[in-house]
């Protein structure tokens, strides 16, 4: 398989300025801070991570809706990092985005039929009649009815709006679709319908997806590989199977343990790994491992000093941690006590 997208050492730092007349930069929010990965053509890469860890920012950089501070983005063997707006325009129909906040990304004064048809129109595809037919088809494909064609965004429920975003992204048959929470507002049956649809389209047209989602069940189902982010960095990257059977990073372990179970008895007995401490500050990230202030396995003198690199320890499975999990699932005691550290050593 060829590589469709290559991201190398990508950084997005939002400046924080002070002063009214002479705006002076005093610091920066390091939303994405050195991220490298590849996406193969026809593959689905899932991205998970704590709220605020930089997932949407990363997505916006990939599509060049933001100008990254550093790093390169290659799309289809072409360096697009510094392309101008005009140079990006022909590429826009090849890379579409489904936005996280469906309401904010829909024009409240435009009827939905118009919104979905817009990418077709901008790219001069089809006659007006053909476009209308295509839009009605798309609405149906995402589980809306033609009666919705003339409605305004505020007349839709949350999940219906999300589907409008999906229909719009599909309109021009792009090569890459970046989906930021594409199904979070949908009931599980419509969710299944959209996920099945995304898979069908992938098989049929060889589409490539980057899917950001909080629901690990969804990510597991749709992804070939999953990338776990924490505070602007990748902490783990593996095939979906590997990741769920043997998470290596303690943060991934905490995520897995916190997935609620759709079984009331199990749900009541569930003991998620609680992450102590505050969500860290992306302006001034912790030294050493960024996760160390909240990590149950943290070893003083190592984790708070040395930044662990993202290392491929098993073929196709990388992690950035000095004391990766030895097995899974684990008891809280095993979690706190890395096997490579003897208890006496740890307590000194």
């Amino acid at each position, binding site marked *: 398989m060829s590589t469709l997208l290559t991201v190398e050492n990508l950084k997005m730092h939002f400046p924080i300025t002070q002063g009214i007349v002479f705006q002076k930069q005093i610091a920066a929010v390091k939303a994405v801070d050195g991220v490298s990965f590849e996406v193969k053509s026809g593959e689905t890469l899932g991205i998970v*991570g704590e709220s605020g860890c930089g997932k949407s920012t990363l997505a916006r950089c990939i599509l060049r809706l933001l100008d990254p501070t550093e790093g390169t983005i290659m799309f289809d063997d072409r360096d697009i990092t510094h392309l101008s707006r005009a140079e990006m325009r022909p590429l826009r129909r090849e890379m579409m985005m489904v936005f996280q906040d469906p309401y904010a990304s829909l024009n409240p004064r435009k009827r939905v039929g118009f919104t979905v048809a817009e990418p077709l129109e901008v790219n001069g595809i089809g006659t007006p009649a053909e476009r209308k037919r295509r839009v009605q088809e798309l609405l149906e494909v995402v589980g809306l009815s033609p009666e919705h064609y003339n409605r305004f965004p505020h007349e839709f429920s949350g999940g219906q709006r999300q589907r409008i975003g999906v229909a719009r992204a599909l309109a021009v048959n792009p090569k890459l679709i970046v989906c930021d929470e594409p199904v979070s507002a949908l009931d599980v049956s419509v969710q299944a319908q959209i996920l099945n649809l995304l898979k069908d389209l992938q098989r049929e047209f060889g589409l490539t997806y980057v899917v950001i989602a909080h629901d690990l069940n969804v990510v597991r189902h749709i992804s070939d590989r999953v990338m776990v982010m924490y505070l602007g960095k990748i902490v783990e990257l593996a095939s979906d199977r590997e990741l769920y059977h043997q998470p290596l990073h303690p943060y991934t372990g905490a995520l897995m343990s916190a997935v609620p179970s759709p079984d009331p008895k199990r749900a009541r007995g569930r003991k998620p790994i609680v992450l102590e401490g505050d969500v860290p500050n992306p302006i001034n990230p912790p030294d050493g491992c960024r996760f160390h202030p909240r990590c149950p396995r943290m070893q003083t003198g190592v984790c708070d000093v040395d930044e662990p690199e993202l290392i491929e320890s098993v073929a196709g499975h990388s992690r950035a941690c000095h004391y990766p999990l030895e097995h899974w699932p684990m008891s809280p005691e095993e979690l706190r006590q890395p096997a490579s550290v003897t208890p006496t050593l740890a307590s000194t």
Partner: protein
Amino acid sequence: MALLEVENLKTRFRTDDGVVTAVDGVSFTLEKGETLGIVGESGSGKSVTCLTIMGLNDPRNTVSEGAARLDGVDLLTTDPESLRALRGMRIAMIFQDPMTSLNPVKKIGWQLEEAVLVHRDVSRKESRALAIDAMKSVRIPRAEQRIDDYPHQFSGGMRQRVMIAMALINEPDIVIADEPTTALDVTTQAQILDLMNELQREREMAIIMITHDLGVVAEVADEVIVMYGGQVAEHASVDDIFYRPRHPYTWGLLGSLPRLDLEVERLEQIPGQPPSLLNPPSGCRFHPRCTFAMDICRTEVPQLLPFGEGLHLQRCWLDDATKERESARTVAGLQQEAS
């Protein structure tokens, strides 16, 4: 008397194409300290039910009927003045769309303080302190500084946490939470659910939790309402919904769940399209998509009736034996262990 009694609630919208009946006869009660989960099809009227209770629909194109009594006072007929006083103070809502309910040109802190100042006679200094506390309680880091940020500087999940903070800031008796944690990662979600649970125990706060996440419902709800096409399809205790579901739509929902521990190529989905609310299907609203539909389902509207002796309400024409058999089959599928 229950804390909140909702009786035969109906909400209609006028649209260019005709009248949409978004909520069609919803009834339930909510006790102090109870958590009611509402699940159901996207577009089935979950949010509108709650907006109607809160009196937040646009009166220019909306007509509501029925009653929603908070300690005996009907929120639908009470004067706007008293409604404004109750709203935010005794009954508060966490909205589904955080970006539209936060004002983009006002600082986060200003918006939180407003929520306090509208209802309470406190100084600006006190309200600021309350706002910072509220932000901390939902785990927003560096609350003292971030209070002066604008909404666009927050991530999606952080905006959602601000909405939660705003709803809880006046310690209301009832919180209506519309998808409060869908924008959050599972570890933050677990913390927020814990926080709500704590407040609930401390103050006997009642919660209405609308969510698509059946895992969240299983974890927090005492009772569950399953909605379909503007109506209640099933209403039962959380255990009954998950272990003894009695409605074909609920079976379909439970069957569509993607699972962390099971690998499947395709997910089950309920066939067909959601019902039109302009022209709802005759008979049972679910019949065009129901694999069990009989002749009677196409013509006669099933009523919301108890199953057997219990408090388990359901709206379906199937006989009890079929319901028990299919229910057992669905649950067996759900309990299937990873290979």
